[in-house]
């Protein structure tokens, strides 16, 4: 569908330093709400909250067109540079085309294939179990994650956040934050090993 070069993180940053300048308040309170509202009207989008999964193909495709147009029309705001990263629709399609259709989470016998499925697929999604960023007491961290890894239906682990590290508050941008994050990864791997699933993804 598209032959334009792929835009990745490096080009995105370059555009964040050269794109149009916009005050952040204008972005939050004018550009985003006004664009979303205009596109809702343009595509005649009306959702029924009693029907949580749509079956109307027209509604489904119009939501996609509106979302695509929102991204191309608005771009993405970089808070540190105060500028907007802009793309063309062709660039978005190039990224979509190059995105993986399938990948392997974890290693060896404990790995799982994450691959495309449709809404009516009888194959279930990957089950990623864990506290999902919720705080966990340091002394219970391994045990709690081991309990998830022991569940046969759980395919991969999503970790919690260690509340302290050696009793210290892992405040952002401090050495204790780094220590907490590294310990979290090590302790979850230990929990997976203790559950007999050393190759499990995280």
């Amino acid at each position, binding site marked *: 569908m598209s032959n334009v070069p792929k835009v*990745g*993180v490096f080009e*995105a*940053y370059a555009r*964040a330093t050269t794109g149009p300048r916009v005050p952040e308040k204008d*972005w*939050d309170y004018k550009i*985003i709400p006004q664009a*979303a*509202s205009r*596109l*809702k009207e343009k595509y005649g*989008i009306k*959702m029924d*909250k009693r*029907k*949580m*999964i*749509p*079956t109307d193909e027209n509604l*489904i*495709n119009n*939501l*996609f067109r509106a*979302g695509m147009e*929102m*991204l191309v029309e608005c771009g*993405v*705001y970089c808070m540190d*540079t105060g500028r907007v*990263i802009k793309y063309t629709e062709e*660039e978005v399609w190039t*990224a979509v085309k190059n*995105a*993986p*259709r399938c*990948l392997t*989470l974890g*290693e060896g016998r404990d790995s799982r294939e994450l691959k*495309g*499925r449709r*809404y009516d*697929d009888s*194959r279930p*999604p990957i*089950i*990623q*179990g*864990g506290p999902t960023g919720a*705080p*966990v007491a340091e002394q219970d961290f391994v045990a709690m994650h081991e*309990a*998830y890894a022991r*569940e046969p*239906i*759980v395919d*991969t682990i999503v970790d*919690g956040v260690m*509340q302290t590290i050696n009793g210290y508050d892992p405040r952002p941008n401090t050495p204790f934050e780094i220590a907490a994050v590294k310990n979290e990864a090590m302790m979850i791997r230990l929990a997976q090993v203790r559950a007999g699933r050393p190759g499990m993804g*995280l």
Partner: protein
Amino acid sequence: MRASDSHEVSQLNELKIDVGALSFVAHYVLAGDIIMCEQMPILGGYAGGLEETTIVDVATTLNAFLMTQAHWHLDGPIHVRWGITTAREVLAVAGHCARAIEENTHLLLGNQYYTLAGPCTVMCLLETAAQSITDTASGRELVSGVASAKGVATNYTTAMEARFMGEVAHAVAGMDLEKVNGILDELVGMYETQYKTAPKGKTFNECYDLVRLTPSDEYMQVYKEAWGILNKLGLKY
């Protein structure tokens, strides 16, 4: 971490990013890591209501694969008033966004779980079930949870909620969409009137034998009761 683990980066609300996030994406890219881009659009936030939030959700999902070179995207539409992903309106955002993306692309999509009620409560499990049904029957490839009790209280999460999320996903996969929507409407109606009195539940330490790592008899009873409700709605595992 290994390259085969999911390396996370978060977009900011709405359609925003900072240089720090781009910098660690650069590291992930150069290290050959799997990249998971997360984002939680806020219903009732900058974008506005139901339709507007869904449009923004589609836009930011697409952006994940462009700006952060994501291998897969982790959604999490969240309700501004309740701070949860299981309210009717945000389930509708997630369900509509997933169908829009899945119908038009091959992108790999996940969703994350924040319930209002906490562990060892029927309400927590019913909230979990509603989202698992929505995600599975809208074509998502991965479900990720559960941050029970809104994911803010220490140790208020257990593996039993993840077990339930998984079993419900397995049970609903392949079910006719009209039937799914009927079940969902009834199921959400069972808990959405209880938001102001939602039970915080019990901690991991109260729910598990910490030596054997087995759930308590009390939680097993609650679990059975929740499955009984789903059975009556037409869901079997």
